[in-house]
């Protein structure tokens, strides 16, 4: 038990009392501490363990009968269909040089210098895009004139529209010279812009049509003085365009699916043997993309890294090719994906059509899923009318539902408890632990003090059995069982806590029978309380 300066002193009540004494003695200087012994009886700790303490609430759900279900949902889509229709940064640069026609030639206002219509091809790979809607990006332009005169430069992009209005860049330059050009630049935010990629003819793909005209500025009365070698340089730069919607032929692509679902962050299946009554596992594929796909799961494996064991999921339907048909889009504006009618594929796996129970009874801490996804396995069957809304594309989700109706055999939970205190812990006495078990399984409890290296230095509780609650004829009703435990606590043991020792707890759970399933309801709990009785020593320095 703990001496007055430790646990006793840290109870509110005792501290009030000691406060009085301490104040009275505070001003006295002592060569040695004032000490005396007291007999204390006091509570130390209490708590309640429910299943939700062992498993995050987000993974637990009780059904209408109060039976716990372990639910796990994992998104398996690790391939990014956005990349199908990604548009790279594209630079269009035009350099026009005055031919050797002589120097200082005077051109009147309105005199046309350059007129050029052009299809610029985007450097996309293996896709044939007809139109896209940008969700972000910029169009940067830069006009540079070495001509000694006022020019008007008009860059017209009829296929780059915002709300149906084509984009026109109209720049009026000031006179430059052969050494110092006049330069003007600007930026257009492409968010929400529709970009027609069918070119001048309207039947092509990946092409942006543009019209360029440069002339002596008609709004300025002075003529332009042109000499051989004078240049006009025009740069149009599509910077970091992101696609919200795209239409075209996306090509035939194959992606590898290699997903590792790590449970360690959410739940750690303990050691021991688990017998599950019913388990269901659903694979659901929801396709919002206007192209076909084919999914082939290579293997689905549960891995117990503690034991090194793994089990392959065996289900005929899952191991066959899953053909995902294209979604349909009735929208004209393509403003969002709400108009898309997705397609669904779902595979339901349970004890009757698979080895799912063995799969999970392996107590996996991770699942490994491998496979392939082929986009447009049949090629361009829509005449270039694949579509995608990148905000909502293809999702493949795994949903696991385990009703907690289990058999347990030597199911082992472990925990490490670190006790921190600002004062020295001293004790010599007993702890009385009372455990009230409302779970229909027994527990065998071990507790020991360990050092930082994990070496056991003291045994607190050695294989103390906590009786299982007795199930009644009424489902979900049990008769709780109380088990008292006495623990000797020595000063020697508590001294270890000053050197960063910890308490290691181990609980081994067993149902009455491994073959008979015990149902775990949400109202089941295990209460514990710890109280101390000891002769303790109070010390005032």
């Amino acid at each position, binding site marked *: 038990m703990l001496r007055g300066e430790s646990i006793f002193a840290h109870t509110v009540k005792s*501290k009030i009392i000691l406060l009085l004494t301490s104040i009275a003695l505070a001003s*006295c200087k002592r060569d040695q501490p*004032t*000490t005396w012994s007291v007999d204390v009886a006091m*509570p130390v700790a209490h708590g309640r363990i429910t299943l939700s303490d062992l498993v995050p609430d987000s993974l637990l759900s009780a059904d209408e009968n109060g039976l716990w279900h372990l639910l796990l949902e994992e998104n398996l889509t690790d391939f990014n269909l956005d990349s199908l229709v990604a548009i790279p940064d594209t630079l269009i640069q035009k350099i026009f040089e005055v031919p050797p026609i002589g120097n200082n030639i005077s051109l009147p206002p309105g005199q046309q210098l350059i007129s050029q219509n052009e299809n610029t091809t985007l450097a996309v790979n293996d896709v044939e895009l007809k139109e896209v809607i940008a969700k972000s990006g910029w169009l940067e332009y830069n006009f540079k004139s070495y001509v000694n005169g006022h020019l008007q430069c008009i860059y017209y992009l009829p296929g780059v529209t915002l709300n149906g209005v084509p984009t026109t860049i109209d720049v009026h330059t000031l006179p430059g010279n052969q050494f110092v050009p006049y330069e003007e630049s600007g930026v257009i935010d492409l968010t929400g812009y529709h970009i027609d990629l069918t070119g001048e003819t309207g039947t092509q793909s990946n092409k942006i049509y543009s019209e360029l005209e440069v002339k002596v500025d008609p709004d300025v009365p002075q003529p332009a003085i042109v000499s051989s070698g004078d240049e006009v340089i025009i740069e149009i730069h599509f910077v970091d365009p992101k696609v919200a919607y795209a239409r075209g032929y996306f090509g035939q692509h194959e992606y590898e699916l290699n997903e590792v679902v790590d449970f360690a962050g959410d739940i750690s299946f303990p050691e021991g043997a688990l017998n599950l009554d019913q388990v269901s596992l659903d694979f659901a594929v929801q396709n919002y993309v206007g192209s076909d796909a084919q999914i082939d799961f290579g293997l689905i494996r549960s891995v117990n890294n503690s034991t090194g064991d793994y089990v392959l999921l065996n289900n005929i339907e899952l191991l066959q090719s899953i053909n995902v048909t294209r979604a349909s889009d009735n929208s004209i504006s393509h403003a969002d994906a709400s108009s898309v009618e997705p397609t669904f594929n779902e595979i339901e796996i349970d004890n009757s059509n698979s080895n799912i129970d063995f799969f999970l009874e392996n107590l996996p801490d991770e699942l490994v899923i491998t496979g392939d996804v082929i986009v447009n396995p049949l090629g361009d069957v829509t005449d270039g009318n694949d579509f995608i809304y990148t905000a909502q594309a293809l999702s493949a989700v795994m949903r696991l539902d385990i009703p907690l109706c289990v058999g347990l055999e030597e199911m082992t939970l472990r925990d490490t408890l670190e006790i921190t205190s600002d004062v020295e812990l001293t004790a010599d006495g007993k702890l009385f632990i009372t455990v009230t078990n409302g779970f229909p399984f027994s527990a065998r409890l071990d507790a020991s003090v360990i050092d930082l290296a994990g070496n056991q230095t003291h045994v607190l509780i050695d294989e103390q059995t906590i009786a299982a609650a007795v199930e009644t004829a009424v489902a979900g009703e049990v008769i709780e069982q109380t088990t008292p435990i006495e623990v000797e606590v020595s000063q020697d043991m508590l001294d270890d806590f000053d050197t960063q020792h910890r308490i290691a707890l181990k609980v081994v759970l067993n149902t009455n029978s491994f073959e008979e399933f015990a149902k775990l309801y949400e109202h089941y709990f295990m209460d514990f*309380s710890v109280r101390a009785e000891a002769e303790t020593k109070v010390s005032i320095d």
Partner: protein
Amino acid sequence: MKKLSALALLVFIFAKANSQTPSLWLLDPDTGWQASSIMIRMDASVMLQSRHLDLAFLDKLAFGGNISATHIDNISQRLDFRNGAGASAVGGLSIYSFADSLFGKSHIGMHFKASSNYDAQLLFTHNAFDLIFQGNEMFRGRTAAVGSFFQTQAFQKFGVGMFDKRTMSEVTLSYVNGQSFDRLLINDGEFYTSPLGDTLSLLYQGEYWRSDTSQAGFAVGDGQGAALDFSVNLGMITLGVRNAGFIQWNPNFERFQFDSSTVWTGFEVDDLFELTTDTLGLPQLEDTIEYTVKRGNFITGLPAAYNVRVLGKIGRRNFGEFGMEIQPNLVALPMVYGAFTVVPSPHHYFTFRIATGGYGGFRIGWDYQFKTNRNFYMRIGTENFPGILSKHSRGASGFVTIIQHFGNSTKHD
């Protein structure tokens, strides 16, 4: 400067001065001392008394050592429901001028006084003692009443006053320098232990006062006030008042008030088997005690005392003395005492004393007074003689007075 330091040290080392005029001065027919021009008086006294706590216990409590269970049990057996202890220490220096007169009266002189004063009072219930020193095991299934009171204060007085050169009656008005003050008063404290010891509950209502904690030390000046002392000798009867006054403390004085209850059932442990290393931190007092605190220029009273003494001759040479002192505080009872003085020669007075009340019980003491023909006087004694000899005594005290006369002045009417 060295002289001042030595004087301060002397004042500090000596403790509670008896403010009454020494009986010898009233009984001795030789009044030649009144012819001196200056009289310097040094007083020191120290007192520790309890009706129930013995010196060995208090010594270990204050200065360290292990208090045995047997010792604690013995004390517990003699405790009443309410129990107290008190202590004080005073060291003082007084200068009396016989040479001058005041208000045109040659028998009235001026005096100056300086003293350093320490006072402590403790009041506790039997239950509180048992709970602190024997633990709560014995209180399983019942409630311990733990209302208690504790107060200490330290202050210095610098006074000026006048005295009657013939009777040594005097009155002094002092400026008081507050050094420190602490008071814990638990008006209502109940500590309950459940039969199993798995629930503790505490009801606490009271207050804690303390002076400025940002500065500490001798004569630090945390507050200032005034005090009135007087001692009137009406023939063989002496009436006295000591420390009738107050201190107003600086704005950093704090008054904590608490009135709450709490139940303790142990630490709440709710994260077992979350399969990580959990940390269980023991809670701190500050986390759990509920209180309000006010700061301001609070005023506290000085540890006043009111006394009366009657002297009378018994035979030709011997004298009797009877007196009473009342200290108006929560702890002290009225103290009465009697004394018998033997005068073997005009220069030596031996006095035997008995007393009861105050902070202690019945006790015996003695003192010895010595004077030369004119210039020197000394008194030394104790009000609790067994306390000097045995740590089993429930108190101890000692006092000393030294007086030196200088020069000559006119004999007074």
